[in-house]
């Protein structure tokens, strides 16, 4: 059974006095398997947030069916095994951080089983242990995002739905979230992760769902998309003589010398191995070998352009 299933889901909003039809999602069908991290990407207005709201029962689909672990998403019980982090944390500002966690646990019927140690542990995981008694209104947006992550962890949910969870966070916070999300995926949790930052998708997600104009553009492993953007390998070595540089050029490799190093670009894995052997025989050691890919964003845009044409 899939963790999340969208079957021919459409959403048409009615706007203005005359109720003009504004389609946000059109005949969307995709599924997210149990376990692993799935990225949910698309440009602004592609229908990501509307889809997530429908998944969480906040917005009602005009047609189609959404399921969470086989249960109809419009039924509140389907959310029992879910946790959600939104782009903007929506905590009650009169509560303290610890009270907010307890409140959330009570809503998920875990209140009685929750101990102070559980709350402290969750706060510690997100580096907020000193903020348990502080009011939400005293916490910065980044701190509230961390608290939202603590709440999601405390729910011990099997399915975690994140809508731009790292928006507005500082670099240490982003790094922490990436580590937590990666560990959730490694523990077999299902993470459905909407973001604009494709670098995050590239690093964290095994699968990706791409939306464009409210329609499904692509669903599947991220590998083939990255493969489309593959542009060879980059070997970096220290300084080498001009004679060696000429020799490398003669072998058909592109070079980019800098003050302290030389970067060598090769097209295939075979060439990378040959180049490495050549350097090794001359006692030149590689500082790094990097697989070069076009940014995911570039690949996705290209893909959309191809589809449109």
């Amino acid at each position, binding site marked *: 059974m899939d963790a999340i299933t969208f079957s021919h889901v459409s959403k048409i909003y009615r706007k203005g006095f005359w109720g003009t039809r504004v389609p946000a999602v059109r005949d969307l069908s995709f599924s997210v398997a149990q376990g692993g991290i799935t990225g949910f990407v698309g440009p602004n207005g592609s229908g990501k947030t509307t889809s997530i709201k429908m998944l969480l029962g*906040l917005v009602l689909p005009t047609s189609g069916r959404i399921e969470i672990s086989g249960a109809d998403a419009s039924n*509140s019980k389907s959310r*029992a095994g*879910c946790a959600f982090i939104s782009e*903007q944390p929506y905590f*009650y500002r009169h509560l303290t951080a610890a009270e907010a966690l307890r409140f959330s646990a*009570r*809503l998920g*019927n875990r209140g009685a089983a929750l101990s102070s140690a559980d709350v402290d542990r969750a706060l510690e995981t997100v580096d907020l242990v000193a903020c348990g008694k502080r009011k939400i209104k005293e916490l910065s947006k980044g701190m509230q995002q961390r608290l939202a992550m603590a709440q999601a962890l405390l729910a011990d949910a099997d399915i975690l739905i994140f809508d731009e969870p790292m928006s507005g966070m500082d670099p240490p916070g982003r790094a922490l979230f990436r580590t937590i999300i990666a560990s959730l995926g490694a523990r077999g949790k299902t993470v459905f992760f909407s973001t604009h930052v494709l670098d995050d998708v590239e690093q964290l997600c095994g699968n990706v769902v791409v939306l464009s104009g409210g329609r499904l553009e692509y669903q599947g492993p991220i590998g083939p998309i990255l493969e489309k953007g593959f542009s060879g390998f980059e070997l970096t070595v220290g300084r080498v003589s001009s004679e060696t540089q000429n020799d490398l050029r003669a072998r058909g490799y592109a070079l980019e010398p800098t003050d302290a190093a030389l970067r060598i670009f090769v097209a295939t894995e075979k060439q990378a191995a040959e180049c490495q052997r050549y350097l090794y025989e001359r006692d030149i050691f590689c500082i790094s070998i990097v697989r070069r890919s076009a940014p995911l964003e570039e690949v996705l845009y290209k893909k959309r352009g191809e589809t449109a044409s």
Partner: protein
Amino acid sequence: MNALFAVMLNTIKETIRNHVVYVVLLFVVALIVLSVSFGDWSVFARIQVIEDFGLATMSISGLLLAVFIGVGLLGSEMSSKTLYHVLTRPVTRYQFIVGKYLGLLSVLALNYVVMTLFFVATLTLLGGRVTTALLSAVLCIGVEMAVIVSAAIFFSSFTSTVLSAMFSVAFYVAGHLNDLISVQIASQQWAMFPIVLKTLYYALPNLEHFNVRDAVVYTMALPDGYAPLVLAYGLAYVTLFLVLSCVAFNKKDL
């Protein structure tokens, strides 16, 4: 049930920290104190003036609290989107509405008890008597407040905060003028639209049923079982408004 209780407790905490409750409480206390001096102007009916003024003040305070807090109860949740925190958990929308209502009602009931104690203390100190009719009047005003708050929640479940406030005030006024509508239907003087008038008459609760100030002031006996009947009447309307709120809120995109 746990979720409903959690929403209720959270609303109690939220409302207790709302300064409007204390402002209205102070306003009522100040008016009751003021009613003592109004009573002094009347040579023969000092206690009656205090009773009438005190009960009217408590009734108006119910309207004020419904408008200032009841209307904003859902509106503020929707504008600040804090309801996402609740509704993305395994909580139904009806649990949310009923939990919010019961939470607010708990604080208002506490507030109302404080007002009543102050009113009764003032009255007793000035030589008045706490009669069954007086206690019935207090109960009726409390039930009326519960009805107005439920109506305010119903209005805010499908429209903006400002419109909900206007509808709530109109509901209060129309509810108290309901008897007048029946008089007009009977007299046929203005009844150009008898169907409209009859619809209004039956659709709106008759809030005058909750007004037994005259019986208190003029020491008239209330019919037997009046208070329980009014309580049942009020509860029926509270249930109706909460069901309608849930139906309207269930269909709303958040």
